[in-house]
């Protein structure tokens, strides 16, 4: 009986982790595309937060979108899932800190996440809450791993 319940839980957890992997993957891939296509616009967004020194703004703006894209793809296919979820959690934590600093400074700036006209938000607590939710989701993936339906499982990583 106990074993059956455990199996059910395991299955449920595996299904949840697929949904979470898809969610994180789509969010990060989607967020990266605009930044990759418009490096200058993204760098300007980064500069607007007034957190990084000028010397680091461009390097950060060049690297971050590709880490987002790479981890987004990897987490969907489930390759090095825990590692990738850890990177995603790190990035999300970084975004939360940046948002809090910006909110503290009361910067009324466009959020650099989805910079298209429709998707651009004013920085606000709703974004902090969204990022905290993403952080929780990525922690779940770190703990659970890729689950049964992942390349990790197939390759035995």
């Amino acid at each position, binding site marked *: 009986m106990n074993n059956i319940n455990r199996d059910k839980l395991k299955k449920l957890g595996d299904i949840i982790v697929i949904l979470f992997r898809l969610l994180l993957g789509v969010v990060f891939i989607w967020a990266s595309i605009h930044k990759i296509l418009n*490096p*200058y616009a993204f*760098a*300007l967004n980064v*500069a*607007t937060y*007034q957190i990084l020194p*000028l*010397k680091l*703004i*461009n*390097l950060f*703006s*060049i*690297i971050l*979108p*590709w*880490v987002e*894209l*790479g*981890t987004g793809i*990897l987490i969907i296919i489930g390759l*090095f899932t*825990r*590692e*990738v979820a*850890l*990177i995603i959690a790190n990035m999300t934590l970084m975004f939360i800190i940046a948002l809090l600093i910006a909110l503290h400074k009361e910067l009324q*700036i466009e959020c650099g996440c989805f910079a298209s006209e429709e998707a651009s938000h004013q920085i606000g607590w709703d974004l902090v809450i969204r990022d905290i939710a993403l952080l929780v989701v990525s922690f779940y993936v*770190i703990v659970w791993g890729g689950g049964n339906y992942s390349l990790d499982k197939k390759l035995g990583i």
Partner: protein
Amino acid sequence: MKRLVKIILRATLITLILTIIALVQNLLRKDGLPFIAKKPYKIYTDCPEFQHELSSVSIDELTKGDTVYVDARPKSEYIEGHIPGAINIPYPLLSDYPSEEEIKPLRQIKGKKKIVVYGDGGEGDLGEGLANILKEMGIENVIYLKGGIQAWIKQGKSLEKSFKNEQH
């Protein structure tokens, strides 16, 4: 514990590989950024209405000579008394811009003549407003007189009167 260290090491390695991909693609693409920004980013956009800077001049800084005065007040007030030689271009209250006909004398100004716009000197001075509009219309060397006609009168400077049909 060992497992956690392994995960962290792998995560670092993955980040490193993605970093290298990012740097290489930046080098290869035409619109790549310089790795280190040379100039500070201009993070605040200008006021959307006027994308220029407008300077002002105080009554004490006015110099004689190459100056054209523009009176931004309504015609009725202009007739009552204005700075000698001033052209009347009433601030357009009913439209966004004065007509091309009205600003024709300003378009014809050549060289480095200063155009000093003045209003009544009150709150929300018409002179400053008109100077902004003229600049927006492409007139160069436009400044406005701080304090408007009131500052001029306070200095005890003379005014010129016009007759109703007289055109400057």
